[in-house]
């Protein structure tokens, strides 16, 4: 059974169908044994999408048939007096299948933004593993099945407990998307399933022991290695990362030397950091490490440029409020060294114009632009305006600068293209904010 589940997981790409095949088996069997959960059966049968293939999926014939054999013998080989714990076992098992199928039926509906389908499949396998694995766990001392699973196996034992490991995050988040009533039974039911299954495992074990030997012989070479690796890996990783509850298991056939384990730990830590960065950086839906690094680099350059542009602005007068007022008068006097008269004369009209433009900007950008152009003004980037003003202040500026100063000192002056850069829009937004005396918006 262990091997079977390993195989299933090996063909994970389209293995959801295989899992559904398994569910189908038990669904059909369950009709004979109504037991305790009629409503579960109805929901399960209605929840099964018709697109799912039937029994005997050629992808994993062995495990499907083995599962059938296993459970059929469970059902039929039991004497009637043992049917009660058996039914309870199966009820619990089927409950997990019900959850699996109901969640699976909900998955296509609730899958929103990208990346959910692999997580959905991962979750499906989780739920399946939750059923399959606890039956097998007591037979193998270690968690490590050692059959080449990609880290999904440890999850059943740690399910329901909070943690920072990535596979757990994968499992938890789709569950958050699910409906409320299915959230709590899922997480609580998980632990209950384990305790319940733990009790029923002993009962089931005796009868189905011979079937577990069968897969164990198949995975015989891997299992002792897996068992041997499990405690060793757990010991080393337990010492290395005590906050992670799951054990770092070696892949099938890999050596257990500390180098590879340390390498794996390092890779996992790096993956963790990449995920954290992915949340931080916008447009970070890339799964590739190189493209993710590209995005990070671009975002970093953008932020640095933003700080540089912000430092070009008139933050200098921010030292205190009182110096601010003095600063205003002095900067007013200093900045208009080039063009006095025209600017001073237009001040009041400019104020009114500016307020009007701000109001118009709120309604319609186009009409505001037209109004400005009618007045012989237009928007210009703040950095450019400051550059011009400071150039106007400097008496040693080139001849080019001396002509524009008088129009430059009025708001939104030069004959620039009215393409509104973010800084230009900030100018009008600020004036709008001032006019409305609302909170400054950016």
């Amino acid at each position, binding site marked *: 059974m262990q091997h079977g589940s390993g195989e299933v997981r090996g063909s994970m790409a389209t293995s959801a169908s295989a899992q559904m095949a398994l569910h189908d088996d038990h669904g059909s069997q369950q009709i004979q044994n109504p037991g305790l959960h009629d409503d579960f059966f109805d929901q399960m049968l209605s929840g099964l999408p018709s697109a799912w293939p039937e029994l005997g999926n050629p992808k994993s014939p062995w495990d499907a048939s083995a599962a059938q054999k296993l459970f059929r013998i469970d059902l039929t080989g039991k004497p009637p007096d043992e049917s009660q714990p058996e039914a309870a076992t199966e009820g619990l098992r089927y409950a997990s299948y019900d959850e699996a199928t109901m969640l699976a039926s909900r998955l296509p509906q609730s899958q929103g933004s990208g990346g959910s389908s692999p997580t959905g499949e991962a979750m499906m396998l989780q739920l399946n593993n939750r059923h399959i694995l606890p039956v097998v766990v007591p037979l193998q001392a270690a968690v490590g099945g050692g059959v080449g699973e990609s880290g999904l196996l440890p999850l059943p034992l740690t399910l329901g407990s909070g943690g920072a490991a990535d596979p757990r995050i994968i499992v938890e988040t789709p569950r958050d998307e699910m409906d409320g009533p299915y959230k709590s039974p899922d997480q609580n039911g998980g632990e209950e399933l384990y305790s319940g299954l733990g009790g029923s495992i002993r009962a089931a074990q005796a009868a189905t022991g011979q079937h577990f030997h069968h897969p164990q012989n198949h995975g015989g070479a891997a299992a002792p290695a897996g068992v041997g690796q499990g405690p060793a890996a757990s010991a080393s990783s337990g010492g290395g990362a005590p906050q992670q509850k799951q054990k770092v298991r070696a892949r099938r056939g890999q050596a257990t030397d500390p180098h590879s384990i340390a390498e794996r730990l390092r890779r996992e830590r790096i993956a963790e950091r990449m995920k954290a*960065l992915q949340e931080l950086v916008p447009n970070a839906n890339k799964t590739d490490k190189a493209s993710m*690094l590209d995005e*990070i680099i671009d975002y970093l350059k953008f932020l640095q440029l933003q700080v540089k542009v912000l*430092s070009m602005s*008139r933050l200098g007068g*921010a030292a205190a409020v009182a110096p601010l007022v003095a600063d205003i008068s002095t900067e007013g006097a200093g900045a208009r060294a080039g063009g006095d008269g025209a600017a001073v004369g237009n001040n009041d009209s400019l104020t009114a114009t500016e307020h009007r433009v701000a109001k118009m900007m709120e309604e319609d950008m186009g009409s505001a632009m037209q109004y400005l152009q009618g007045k012989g003004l237009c928007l210009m980037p703040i950095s450019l305006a400051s550059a011009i003003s400071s*150039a106007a202040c400097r008496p040693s500026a080139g001849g080019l600068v001396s002509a524009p100063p008088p129009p430059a000192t009025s708001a939104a002056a030069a004959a620039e293209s009215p393409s509104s850069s973010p800084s230009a829009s900030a100018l009008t937004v600020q004036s709008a904010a001032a006019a409305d*005396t609302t909170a*400054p918006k950016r």
Partner: protein
Amino acid sequence: MQVAEAFKHAFLKQMLLGFQASVVSPKSMGFQERKSAIKLSADVAMAVARGTRKWTRGLIAGLSKEHQNRSFLQLILGEQYERLMKPCHSSWKIPRCKKIVRRSLRVCCRRKKKKNQVGVLARTLVAKRTQELKILVPGGESMDGFSLLDETLDYVVSLRAQADLMQSLLTTIEASKLRSHSKGTLPERKASYVGN
């Protein structure tokens, strides 16, 4: 975002102190001078507010390489400056040793004629980008892969906070200027728009 309020307060306070210390005013400085003074104040404020991280040390070390910044830094940081300027030798030796070991391994592999095309390609792509990232993040050259990502994360958060805080400060100043001006106290304030 995981930016603490304490960081914001410390950053703003430090930046205002820096502005006062460097006497940032439009009449005494040209455009470039004022820009670099403001940026210096902002960067130092960010580094100080964040505390001790590898990138903060790298940032301050990079800033102090310019001679004109040294007096400002000493003024602002006080005795912290001397402590920060003490070079930490160990952090430089480790990556150098790693590079030497890796280079020797690569030579050995090349001698053995081992070629893994896909892996090599992916690794070179990642290595190129990692190198670029090391240049961008202050103090990044002396970090290995994992700590580089760690510092990048922290640095991005701090940069974002810095940009947001500067922007909000700017809008607040502008709003207050406009409000005081619209009250009609100072008629000759129009020129202030040009720079903003």
